[in-house]
Each structure stands twice: as structure tokens, then as C-alpha cells.
């Protein structure tokens, strides 16, 4: 891995010392988010993509968790960025990290009994689980430019039911 120092701006930044792949991803996302959306809409999405890049920087090497985790794939990061860009603007952005499989891990957490989780793999597969009140559902789909309906329903359900 070759350390690089990236230019930073107000919207996106990433720590120095990240890989060339992360630098390329940053530039792609800069280009993708720099136009067309109003600032109020673009800001949460840009922040989420910044969080995604930070997650990649943290998990881009094997065993990043000290328990044998797989390295996060740059391809999974690209799919995750596309997923975030495809989320309707009326839905909140998730907390973003990597999971032990090296997938992007997106979580909408509104309390002990209100959680929606989506993971995004390097092959474009989406795995999701929703816990909302007493109901649960989970499933798997392939990401094809649009966020699947059941995932949107899960996010909306959890986002609409806040608790401690």
C-alpha cells in the first residue's frame, strides 16, 4: 500500500496515509457529488460518503479488528457509495463502518428495538435485517442502481419510530 496525502476540502476529507485506491475513490466521489444537488440535500450524502471513506481507511487491511476480519474491498465501497446515492433524500443516512466479512455495514439505529442493518458486498449483493418493535424481517438482493423496496420500507419504519 502506498501512502498518499490527499487534498482536503470542506465536504470530503480523509486522513493522510491511506491507500491509492482510497484516493481514487475519494476523487470519484468528489466528482459524483460536486454538482446538481442543492447543498441541503447534498450535505448529508456527502457526509455519509465521507464516513464510508473513513470506514475504508480503518478497515482496508486484513485483521483490522484484531479478530481475523477480512479487509474491506474497494469494490464494496464503490457499491456502497452508489447505494447511498440511490437513497431517497427524505430518508436519513446510516451510520457506516465495515463488518468482519469486509463488507460495507450500514446501520440505522433508533434504539434497542429499532434497528435496520444493510451490508454491501464486493459482488454487489445486499444483505439486510430489520428489527422494528416486535417485528423482524431479513433477506438478500443484488444491487442494481435502485434500493430494493423492502430495504426502503425497513429504513422508513425504523426512522419513523424513535425511542431511547
Amino acid at each position, binding site marked *: 500500500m502506498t501512502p498518499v496525502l490527499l487534498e482536503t476540502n470542506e465536504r470530503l476529507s480523509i486522513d493522510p496515509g491511506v491507500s491509492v485506491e482510497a484516493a481514487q475513490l475519494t476523487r470519484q466521489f468528489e466528482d459524483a457529488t460536486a454538482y446538481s444537488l442543492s447543498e441541503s440535500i447534498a450535505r448529508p450524502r456527502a457526509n455519509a460518503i465521507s464516513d464510508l471513506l473513513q470506514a475504508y481507511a480503518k478497515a482496508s487491511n486484513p485483521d483490522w479488528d484484531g*479478530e481475523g476480519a477480512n479487509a474491506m474491498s474497494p469494490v464494496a465501497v464503490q457499491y456502497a457509495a452508489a447505494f447511498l446515492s440511490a437513497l431517497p433524500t427524505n430518508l436519513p443516512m446510516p451510520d457506516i463502518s465495515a*463488518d468482519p466479512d469486509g463488507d460495507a455495514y450500514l*446501520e440505522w*439505529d433508533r434504539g434497542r428495538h429499532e*434497528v435496520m442493518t444493510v451490508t454491501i458486498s464486493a459482488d454487489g449483493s445486499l444483505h439486510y*435485517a430489520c428489527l422494528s418493535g416486535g417485528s423482524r424481517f431479513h*433477506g438478500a438482493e443484488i444491487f442494481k442502481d435502485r434500493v430494493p423496496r423492502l430495504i426502503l420500507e425497513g429504513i422508513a419504519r425504523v426512522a419513523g419510530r424513535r425511542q431511547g
Partner: protein
Amino acid sequence: MSLDADRVEDDEVVARFLFDRDDFVPTTGRVKPKPFLPSPEDDATSVFRTGGLSETDTWALASPRGMRIAKARGTLQGGQIRWAGLDVVPMVPPPRHAAIVNWPAKDARLSLAQRLAELAKLVLRPETQPAERAP
């Protein structure tokens, strides 16, 4: 207290040590689902059997895991893990180590991790609490 070498009892407490501040919510006493997901190395989630130990000895169990310091732990009983549809089995070494096993396919495991997080109790490491409150 002697531990059964072959079985984690239903009323026995096991702890999942938490090293990442993002894995728990101190203000509401919650553990997040992600730390319960299994390692891809062995498809198991590492836990420790803490029955009969003092707090000091319990936190010491986490120390051999590299240089990282556990900030908190999520505790469950063996019976809760089995009720969720998984199993927990002794897996030594190290001493008192056990593993949550029988994880299904990925989407179902995400759901089970949510279920374990619902059931888990959060215990903060005492010396980390002042730092958590610092501005």
C-alpha cells in the same frame, strides 16, 4: 466456581468484550448488533465465561487479546444465546474462552446479531467512564 469443560450452562454468563467506542451506547446501556457478528476465520463469535470472577479478573480476561483495551463488555446468558437459535460452546485456549456458533446465512445472521444485541446487558469498564464523560 468450577466450569463445565464441555458445556456452557443456560444460566451461565458470557461476555463479549467491546474494543470500539462505536459498538455500544453508554447513555442507554446498549450494545450494538455488529460486535456479535462472527469472525470469518472460524465462523464464531469470541466470548469469555465470567462466572465466579471478580470485576478485576473479568477485565483481565480481555487483556491477552493483543494490546487493545476493552472499553466495555456485553453480557448474555447461555440460555439466551440458545433461545435466539445459536449455541455457545467452550473453546479453550485461552482459559475461559467460548464461542457463539451455528451461525446461518448472512442476512439471517444480521437478524440474530440484532436479537443478541436486544438481550445483551452493557457493562462499562470503570476506568473508561470518566473519559467518556469528558468534553
